[in-house]
């Protein structure tokens, strides 16, 4: 190479550039988080958390949105966990190689790749209109379940497959049936990994907006049943910001949402740490 710059110099220059890139990424993140927190913290008072909004949210608090988000997550969790873990158990423990299994796995992959707004559209047409659930906690929660189901299936399947096969053999050799082996040995051994995955899945669902816009509704009243509409916190934030209702309230809502996501992620990490060494109680 007939370069004017010596290899040693370009090596050093390149490394500086890599350090700069990494720093830019981290600083961007810190700036975004810092900005939100600095702007939002003053808004965070007990009454902000515990009051209902007034004047479309320009004043008052965000309690109904917090409750709405909580209800949605509950429906999502209760539907996604049994189906997702069941599917993972089938794929990891029961499925034989073949066309059916390939189609099933392909379906999981596909669902994971579908944009959330398309899931929202589908939720609207299928859950809200066709099944008649209307704009409701039920519709929104199920639509969110569609979104995180592939994630839960995948994480659970991986955790199950990581269980040493010697444990399965030992159980079979003691005269246990397939299901006894799966439910008493394999599943308990995989539970820490699965739990972490489920929690992270909820972390994804909690900030999701496009899926629930046309399924959960946007009511700011306290829900009283599964069929009541709710406005989840991220949607509330979107409305506050995009309709120019109140930037101040939007910052406050952002901080609350961020804290929720953070707590969820930390919980996942804590569980992973705690169960680093496997020990299951019967």
């Amino acid at each position, binding site marked *: 190479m007939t370069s004017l710059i010596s290899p040693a110099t370009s090596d050093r220059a390149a490394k500086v550039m890599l350090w700069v890139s990494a720093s830019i990424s981290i600083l961007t993140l810190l700036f975004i988080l810092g900005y939100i927190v600095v702007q939002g913290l003053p808004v965070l008072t007990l009454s902000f958390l515990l009051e209902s909004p007034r004047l479309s949210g320009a004043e008052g608090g965000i309690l109904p949105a917090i409750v709405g988000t909580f209800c949605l997550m509950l429906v999502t969790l209760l539907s996604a966990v049994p189906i997702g873990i069941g599917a993972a158990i089938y794929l990891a423990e029961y499925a034989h190689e073949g066309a059916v299994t390939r189609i099933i796995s392909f379906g999981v992959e596909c669902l994971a790749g579908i944009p959330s707004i398309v899931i929202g559209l589908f939720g609207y047409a299928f859950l809200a209109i066709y099944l008649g659930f209307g704009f409701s906690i039920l519709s929104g929660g199920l639509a969110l379940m569609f979104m995180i189901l592939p994630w839960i299936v995948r994480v659970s399947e991986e955790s199950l497959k990581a269980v040493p096969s010697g444990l399965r053999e*030992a159980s079979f050799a003691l005269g246990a*049936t397939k299901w006894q082996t799966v439910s008493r040995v394999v599943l308990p051994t995989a539970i820490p990994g699965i739990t972490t995955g489920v929690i992270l899945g909820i972390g994804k669902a909690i900030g999701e907006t496009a899926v629930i816009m046309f399924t959960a509704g946007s009511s700011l009243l306290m829900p009283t049943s599964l069929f009541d509409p709710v406005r989840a916190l991220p949607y509330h934030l979107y409305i506050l910001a995009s309709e120019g209702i109140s930037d101040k309230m939007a910052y406050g809502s952002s901080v609350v949402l961020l804290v929720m996501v953070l707590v969820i992620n930390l919980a996942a990490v804590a569980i992973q740490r705690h169960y680093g060494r496997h020990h299951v109680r019967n």
Partner: protein
Amino acid sequence: MSEIEIESRNLDLWYGSAQALKEITMAMPEKKVTAIIGPSGCGKSTFIRCINRMNDLVKDCRITGELLFEGTNIYGNSVDAVELRKKIGMVFQKPNPFPMSIYDNVAYGPRVHGLRNREELDRIVEESLKASALWNEVGDILDRSAIDLSGGQQQRLCIARTLAVKPKVILFDEPCSALDPISTAKIEDLINTLKHDYTIVIVTHNMQQAARVSDHTAFFLLGELVEFGKTKQIFELPEKKSTEDYITGRFG
């Protein structure tokens, strides 16, 4: 001469298109120890896994011929593999305790078979741990995780776990190969005690071990049964040249 407990007749086994066992015919007597020896890959594990139908779990595994246990062909239509495995227990090469407490490990089998009574379970756990010579070491730490035990203790726990199901036969697949000499000696002692109550089949790579613990020995080579007879006779006066070569370590 004691009664025949397990008998294989013209047993062939294929993994896919590869034949792993060829025309195995041999009889294992009740309450005796039968050792199976042979070079790596000759089908020892494959054979003893036939006895409790563990090979059912391997797909593409095909078996022909008969394997009689107490006179019935275990590959017959009416035999339930799950029921069969209650009577024929197995201890594996690598200790594989469940990631649960010591107590739960031993109680696993009885619980799976429907036993709920706590006192009864306590009794079985204690008996089994005593029978596997582990009670003195773990009797007061039954709530500890089984994972915390040493390798030798884990293997004896696996034996206790098998005993708790009250089988008639126990299959050992190289139970000492992952253990140190002291733990190995303990397990050999244990086998010598257990043979008063159980029919035992043990796969081993250790010639001295086979000679020490077994009453009968079978020598396998390339999926075939080369020679089967009284251990003393196999080790002192083998009929086949290949058996002698293997036993004296001149195999090659």
